[in-house]
């Protein structure tokens, strides 16, 4: 059985996964560089090193993410939605509804038993409801993304934030900090604003079955808990791998399908 790879060059982070026999033998997440090509080269080099193989060993590689068209070494590019659907189904075989919150967009999709996307919605216009929103807010608060997620549990009275504009929300956060509002209430307000934006998209696809979340924001416990409250359903956690690499996993799985003769591109 050959090695296959998936390379997901996102706006905030780049991810690469190398698989053999549907098992991950190497996976890496790095912060994206200004040029997508540089990000792709760096993340793939690191993943190959982790797997202990060379680029020549890869039988097929699919690129995805916003920088996918700038990757030199891939055999094919596939949209993030298709890759996340595939990856989600591998991470949670019972998943029927997938929420993917990336650095610059947010997607909700329904998938079939093979991980193929049957319906999807994306955020329509701005950074709110995306990973960038949380990153900006965490920076303003002076906490890590992980700490930001945990603030919701400590809050007694979350603030209401402007949630349709990241810049204005940032101004709000600065104002709240200067007014002496407890950081946990501001953090909870940020997570709530984020979750509320995502909940609209989730409900719009009429979620069914097990719900699974991919992307880096899946690791933010505050957003996930608030989102669960808003949609009234549990969001299942990934146990097999980091949910942030779901897109790259999906790309690698699609690569495997290609070399097995399934779903060859036209």
């Amino acid at each position, binding site marked *: 059985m050959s090695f296959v790879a998936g390379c997901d060059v996102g706006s905030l982070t780049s991810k690469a996964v190398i698989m053999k026999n549907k098992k991950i033998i190497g996976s890496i997440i790095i912060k994206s560089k200004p040029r997508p090509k540089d990000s792709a080269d760096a993340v793939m080099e690191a993943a190959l090193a982790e797997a202990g193989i060379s680029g020549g060993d890869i039988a097929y590689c699919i690129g995805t993410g916003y920088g996918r068209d700038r990757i030199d070494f891939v055999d094919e590019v596939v949209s993030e939605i298709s890759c996340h659907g595939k990856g989600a189904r591998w991470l949670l075989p019972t998943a029927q509804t997938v929420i993917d919150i990336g650095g610059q967009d947010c997607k909700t999709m329904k998938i079939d038993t093979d991980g193929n996307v049957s319906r999807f919605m994306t955020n329509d216009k701005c950074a709110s409801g995306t990973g960038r929103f949380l990153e900006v807010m965490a920076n303003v608060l002076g906490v890590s993304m992980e700490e930001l997620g945990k603030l919701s549990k400590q809050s007694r009275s979350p*603030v209401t934030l402007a949630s349709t504009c990241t810049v204005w929300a940032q101004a*709000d956060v600065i104002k*709240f900090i200067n007014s002496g509002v407890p950081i946990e209430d501001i953090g909870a307000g940020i997570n709530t604003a984020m979750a509320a934006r995502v909940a609209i998209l989730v*409900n719009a696809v009429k979620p069914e079955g097990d719900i699974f979340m991919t992307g880096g924001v899946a690791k933010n416990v505050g957003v996930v808990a608030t989102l669960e409250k*808003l949609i009234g359903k549990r969001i299942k956690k990934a146990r097999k791998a980091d949910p942030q690499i779901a897109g790259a996993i999906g790309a690698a799985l699609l690569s495997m399908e290609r070399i097995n003769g399934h779903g060859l591109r036209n």
Partner: protein
Amino acid sequence: MRPEIKEYNYDWLMGRALRTAANLPRGTKKEIGHTYQYIPYFKDIVKSLVDLGDPGFQTLDMLATYYENILSAREKGKKLCATTFCNSPVILYAMDIVPVTLEMLTTIGSLVWKRGMFDYMDFCVETGMPETSCSSQRGAQGALLSGLCEKIDFAICDTPGVCDTNANAFAFLTEYLNIPFFQLNYPSSIGDRRSQKYHVDDYKGMIAFAEAQSGNRLDYDRLAEVLAEVDKQDALIADLEDMLMLKPTPINPIYNMMLYGGRFCFSGHPQYTKLLESMVTSAKEKAITGVSGLKNGKENLRIYMSYIDHYTADLNFFHYLEERGIASVGCILSKNFRDNSPYADALAGSLYGIDTTSPDAMLDSLAQMNARLPMVRSIRGPYDKKGMWLEESLTFAKMYQADCVIYNGTPGCRNTWGMLKPYARDIEKHGYPCHIMNDDAFDDRVESWEATRERLDEFFNIRGLL
């Protein structure tokens, strides 16, 4: 929408909350204290109204009755008609139809509900309405679409061309609920014979539609009674407008909201007359002694809100005006453009009168009144056309001695955003500092109240107004 919200009938929830609040003035101190414990988020609003004395009690009673009418309509064999604040409920009352005015319901919900109408607004978006649609409808509309309200029988709106965002909300609502829908149209001018005739013909079509949907024939004797009540109300409104021109004005800023809120809910209904009488009595007492209607008794500044006020949770905007000693001389919603108003001469040709001498005269009066409801009158044509928004704003700013003009709306108000910058430029040219608020009057999530307040403060400070 959060699952727990779906557990409660929205109309019932609002109706009970408002009736309990309306009963408070009759309660003992202990009862009031206990009730406040159970309404931690609505308490401040109730207190604000209770502090106003009788006009505040009347307002609470009126709002509670409005909801009770909706809740009891089916039982009484009446039909429910979804409509807009731009359409007068007078004809509906005359035909024994219960109006459900979406913007009023969103405003009430914003005041009563802990998180404003956010959940319902978001539900509306989930069903397919754009996020940038008008939030004044989106709140109540979300509740209606989610099936948490009394069933609506049909809808009437009169905003195509005037505010397409508003008209589209009704088109969406009626399509989603699969109910009949009638739209009144308006030409881009007002006061000329051709447009007057257009209004009457169009209005007759609307009456025929309402008759067919409700099964009730329009009774002209009943219509005469309702119009007589409107006439009485307009005279009281003229008294209040007279007092609004005094400096300092004895009219508290929140009176403006009570005035137009009452008109949108209960124009032609005796309960609104009672509220206006109470407001006039209370304001007159202050006018006689030359005291400002602001609670601290000192008026530092006079503003004219050239569009709408700000309504998010806790009545923050009105509290802010009180804190800063700012009197509001009204907004586009509070002016009724009646021919007996104190500004009648200044806006001659674009006002209406009431004539109950014959069925045709009554229909003409009604059509002309309806053509002068908010937005319909002022922004049906280009902003700088004679009799339209700019001329009207400058007239009011001058007559009421406003120190500045402030615009507030929602991101959905594309009818005004399209012309707002030149409008503001022209207002400035005439010597009035003009501030454009970038928030959403019904949704704090667009711009938090804290940011809105700071920007207002900055405007007042930089322009040397406060």
